[in-house]
């Protein structure tokens, strides 16, 4: 019986939040280049196949501001992970964790987002399979 319960628990975990998969993660992003960045939300595109949001991120030393963009999963995948279209609002301060783009541009694949106002951490339905 214990084995059965363990199996049932494993199935429950597997069915909790499916990943999204659209284009090749590895073709665009480098899993060996993780980042953790904090900034102010300037734009949110709640769209398929990827929700993309932008942050103004200030370099602590130079004080230079760079506008970064991050792709997450699609709205269906995000809603299964606890998001709504109003979770991110212009002006919110958030911290993003994920993988950098291979081409060196200020772009990344977000795997988790932490909202500064509540401390709430949400998974971003990333197409990177080991992101959850």
């Amino acid at each position, binding site marked *: 019986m214990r084995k059965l319960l363990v199996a049932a628990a494993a199935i429950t975990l*597997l*069915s909790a939040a*499916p990943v*999204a998969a659209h*284009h*090749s993660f590895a*073709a*665009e992003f480098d899993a060996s280049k993780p980042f953790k960045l904090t900034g102010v939300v300037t734009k949110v595109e709640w769209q*398929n*196949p990827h929700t993309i949001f932008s942050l103004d991120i200030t370099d602590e030393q130079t004080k230079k501001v760079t506008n970064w963009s991050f792709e997450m999963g699609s709205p269906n995948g995000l809603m299964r992970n606890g998001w709504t279209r109003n979770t991110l609002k212009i002006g919110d301060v958030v911290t993003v964790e994920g993988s950098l783009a291979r081409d060196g541009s200020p772009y990344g694949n977000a795997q988790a987002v932490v909202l500064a106002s509540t401390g709430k951490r949400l998974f971003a339905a990333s197409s990177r399979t080991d992101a959850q």
Partner: protein
Amino acid sequence: MSSVRYVALASAFVIAAFYTAWAQQGPSASRPVQSTPRLADGTPNLGRVPGEKGVWNVPYIQNMGMRIPGPDGKTIAERGTASENGGRGGAKAEPDVPFLPWARGIYDYNSRNNSKYDPEGYCLPPGGPRLMATPYPMEIIQQPEHKRIFMVFEGATHIWREIYMDGRPHPQGDELNPTYLGHSVGHWDHDTLVVDVVGFNENTWLDYYGHPHTDLLHVIEKFTRPTKTTLRYEALIDDPGAYSKPWTVAWNIPWSASGELTEYICQENNRYLLKLTDDFGQPVLGGP
């Protein structure tokens, strides 16, 4: 075995039978193994039980080379001896896949460029077994009165397939128009739904890793539901245009008791395709 043990064993079976009967009707979502739901005529129900929710949570199967059952019936992935996330070894890493030389070359190319040109990245649908390997929920709707079965897929392109259960043959000659999902006819072999699919176009890959196929592809799928919460999927891939002999892949698809399908329209804002450049740095789309 002593008579006491017999009685204990028999009692356990009776209790288990009552428990199963109760579990099928009970409102709780967390319970041990639940038996296969069935339609009124006894056919396995591959979909929802009336009054309940539920979808199949299709897993992300990236590499079908790791899903070939061995002599023990288990695949490399199920034995846990290797990870699909462990990097791309190309055709030489997959001795069990019977590549023809050109298919081996294409597969190695797809490995080297990390599946940059995956048709799913273009928002084109998965074809063949990849329908059951693209991680968006799926529902199976049986219509025995109409002798057909629908499979409805939230992703990758919000599509459905229809499986004809009325005994018709595949169209012959030019009547068989090559399509993304092909032409599916099915029948029940005891508790196994067997689906025969031909008529594929060549615009899809078998999986994310980029195993190619041709329009000679012939797939024989087997669906079983050994318990309420598991769909076992098996597919024979017979493509003499790309592989020297047929090969079989298999995996389990878990049930999500509270799941429902939602909308996913891949084509809305596909920036990946707008940014995609070819091997010479030229845009794949657009340009003069």
